[in-house]
């Protein structure tokens, strides 16, 4: 058995560098703190690659299946023999894959930020937070038990909050960070309830015993309990609410577009590649439990994912802020991943969706990080993130143009780029499981191609905008990550995922099913060509279409008024009918009781303070007369 205990270093290195940069960052030159953070992350990345190599190629498998390995474990809080919270490192195909994703993207973002954040106030703070985030995310993916995962889940939430609010002098950034924190925190309440029900039912937090398909945990709580679903299903639906909040699934998606207020590298790292896929990872982590004892839970996951992906794709077609387009695109792609796990079942070919979902998670991390970093380079050059301020940029930004084009082609599902394979697998899995979801996803694939190329043509072609400063190509620190990720986006599809990451650890025979692949290629190309016609040159077609579908267009442009609905619900209903009465009760009953006690004490003491007059003779008189009275009283009592 290979010894994996060194993997504990992978999360510990970033937290170590977080402390160093966080405590001493203000004393060093900014660039030094950046370099320190980058060095730390590269060590973690090298260790992760080594771990992946060891795990996938140098560890003996049992019956050909990859095993879950408990690389490190320590009891953190010991309540009773049964109830204890552990901290540790769990290695299995998905966690090792996530290690690669997180450290790779994080390293790229670290390098990229050296150029992008140059000269910003709070450069060291930025790197400290990036390290904190990397630590939290690595702790999350390596969690051995659901409670550890919950702790790190909150930690990534905090780091995300800190980084969205990085420009804390901007009111919009502050409110965006609060919004993100509150919405995800609200969803995490569901997660916590789910954890409590789940562990109460099964008697364990531990992932290994929870997901052991022959174990007792998985079989418990299968009886029908409430509204026709079993306890297990309910607990897993609650857990999924937490995942949906973090992954910006409908209807908890409202924080993601606003989260784009953060610096662009942060959007690439947290709100595109790593943290927002935590929800998918959570479902994947508990996948055997979902698939075996709560298939209804998976149906919920699939429908929520499918609806979210359609919803987000429609909105993405109408937005003008390029980062918001990408944010909705992220939401849509995560919807795809949710569909992937949702239509999957445990083991064998039934588990195709699971594999596809993980595959898509991997490829999506690469191309979406590339898109965000590319968008960052464009914003860096143009100093605006509204696409109407752009156009004809291909002449000024050749490297960004090429890499952005590669990413757009990838996400559109053009054959033989990475997302073609992963998206195709998801569509295949959906095709065999649920035709309705399949057609929705196929339509979304077309929309994806359309809005991505709308973005591409609006930025790089269309009209020649006159710029105040001639846009200049990004510095080397920014273009190297772009090129690396472009290469990854092209070739990540050739990693034999079906052999490595599957629902049961056994290799899976996956091949392209042309009956699914050909329609998806056709819709993809169709989307690209429509975008080509509409946006390659400046035309009036967009306005015409917009006015002929006015209702849909205005609705989508305003994100279907979900922010307004939430504001209405919170401000008008919750504030008026719950918060105000509660505040009234607090002020007029709880506080009034306390105030009353204080007031009475005060009034009484004011009345009787005259007794303490400072006149010694009064005291003596009272003393003597009382003594005489007492004497008479005692004589009277004892003489009876």
């Amino acid at each position, binding site marked *: 058995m290979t010894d994996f205990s060194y993997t504990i270093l992978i999360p510990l290195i970033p937290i170590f560098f977080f402390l160093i940069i966080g405590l001493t960052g203000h004393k060093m030159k900014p660039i030094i703190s950046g370099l320190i953070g980058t060095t730390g992350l590269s060590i973690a990345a090298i260790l992760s690659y080594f771990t992946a190599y060891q795990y996938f190629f140098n560890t003996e498998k049992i019956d050909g299946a990859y095993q879950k390995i408990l690389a490190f474990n320590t009891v953190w809080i010991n309540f009773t023999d049964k109830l204890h919270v552990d901290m540790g490192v769990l290695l299995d195909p998905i966690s090792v894959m996530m290690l690669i994703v997180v450290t790779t993207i994080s390293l790229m973002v670290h390098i990229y930020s050296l150029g992008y954040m140059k000269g910003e106030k709070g450069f060291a703070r930025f790197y400290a937070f990036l390290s904190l985030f990397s630590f939290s995310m690595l702790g999350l993916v390596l969690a051995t038990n659901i409670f550890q995962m919950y702790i790190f889940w909150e930690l990534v939430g905090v780091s995300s909050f800190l980084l969205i609010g990085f420009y804390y002098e901007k009111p919009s950034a502050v409110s965006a960070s609060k919004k993100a924190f509150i919405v995800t925190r609200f969803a995490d309440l569901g997660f916590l309830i789910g954890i409590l029900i789940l562990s109460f039912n099964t008697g364990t937090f531990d992932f290994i015993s929870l997901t052991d398909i022959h174990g007792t945990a998985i079989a418990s709580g299968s009886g029908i309990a409430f509204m026709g679903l079993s306890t297990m299903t309910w607990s897993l639906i609650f857990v999924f609410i937490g995942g949906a909040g973090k992954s910006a699934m409908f209807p908890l998606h409202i924080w993601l577009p606003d989260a784009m207020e953060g610096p662009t590298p942060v959007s690439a790292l947290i709100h595109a590649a790593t943290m927002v896929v935590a929800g998918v990872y959570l479902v994947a982590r508990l996948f055997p439990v979902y698939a075996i004892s709560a298939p209804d839970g998976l149906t919920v996951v699939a429908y929520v994912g499918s609806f979210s992906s359609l919803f987000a794709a429609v909105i993405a077609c109408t937005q003008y802020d390029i980062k918001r387009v990408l944010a909705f695109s992220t939401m849509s792609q995560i919807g795809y991943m949710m569909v992937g796990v949702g239509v999957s079942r445990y083991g064998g070919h039934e588990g195709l969706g699971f594999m596809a979902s993980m595959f898509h998670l991997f490829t999506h991390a690469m191309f979406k990080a590339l898109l965000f970093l590319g968008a960052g380079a464009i914003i860096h050059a143009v100093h605006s993130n509204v696409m109407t301020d752009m156009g004809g940029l291909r002449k000024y930004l050749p490297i960004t143009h090429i890499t952005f084009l590669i990413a757009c082609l990838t996400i559109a599902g053009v054959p033989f780029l990475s997302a073609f394979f992963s998206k195709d697998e998801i569509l295949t899995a959906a095709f065999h499981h649920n035709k309705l979801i399949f057609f929705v996803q196929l339509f979304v694939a077309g929309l994806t191609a359309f809005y991505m190329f709308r973005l591409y043509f609006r930025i790089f072609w269309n009209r020649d905008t006159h710029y105040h400063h001639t846009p200049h190509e990004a510095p080397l620190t920014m273009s190297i990550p772009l090129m690396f990720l472009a290469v990854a986006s092209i070739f990540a599809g050739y990693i034999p995922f079906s052999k490595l990451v599957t629902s049961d650890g056994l290799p899976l025979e996956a091949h392209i099913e042309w009956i699914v692949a050909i329609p998806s290629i056709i819709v993809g190309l169709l989307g690209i060509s429509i975008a080509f016609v509409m946006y390659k040159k400046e035309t009036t077609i967009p306005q015409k279409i917009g006015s002929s579908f006015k209702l849909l267009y205005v609705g989508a442009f305003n994100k279907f008024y979900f922010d307004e609905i939430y504001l209405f619900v919170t401000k008008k209903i919750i504030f008026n009918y719950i918060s105000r009465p509660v505040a009234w009760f607090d002020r007029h009953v709880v506080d009034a009781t306390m105030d009353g006690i204080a007031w009475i004490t005060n009034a009484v003491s004011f009345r009787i303070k*005259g007794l*303490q*007059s*400072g*006149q*010694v*003779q009064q005291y*003596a*008189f009272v003393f*003597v007369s009382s003594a005489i009275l007492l004497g008479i009283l005692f004589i009277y009592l004892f003489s009876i």
Partner: protein
Amino acid sequence: MHTVIPIEYFLVTATLMFFAGVYGFITRKNLITILMSVELMLNAVNIIFIAFNRYLYPGQLEGHFFALFVIAVAAAEAAVAIAIIINIYRNFQSIDVEETDKMKY
């Protein structure tokens, strides 16, 4: 046979002295007379000590000792009290007890 003065004589005298002292303590405004009233009360108590000693336990001397102690302590107390009175006079330009009410609420 020679007659003995009955103890009641002593007790009545001492009680009158004591309450005279109490009355003086409560009604007089001058700190010196208040001090004198205190001395009067102490002396009344001394008489009672000695009288009871003589009449109840003629062979013993505890009552006398107590009286002597009280006289000694009273002397010390008078010295301290007069020192305090002098300081009060310096602060208030008066030794009227009603004006020294700084210790009220």
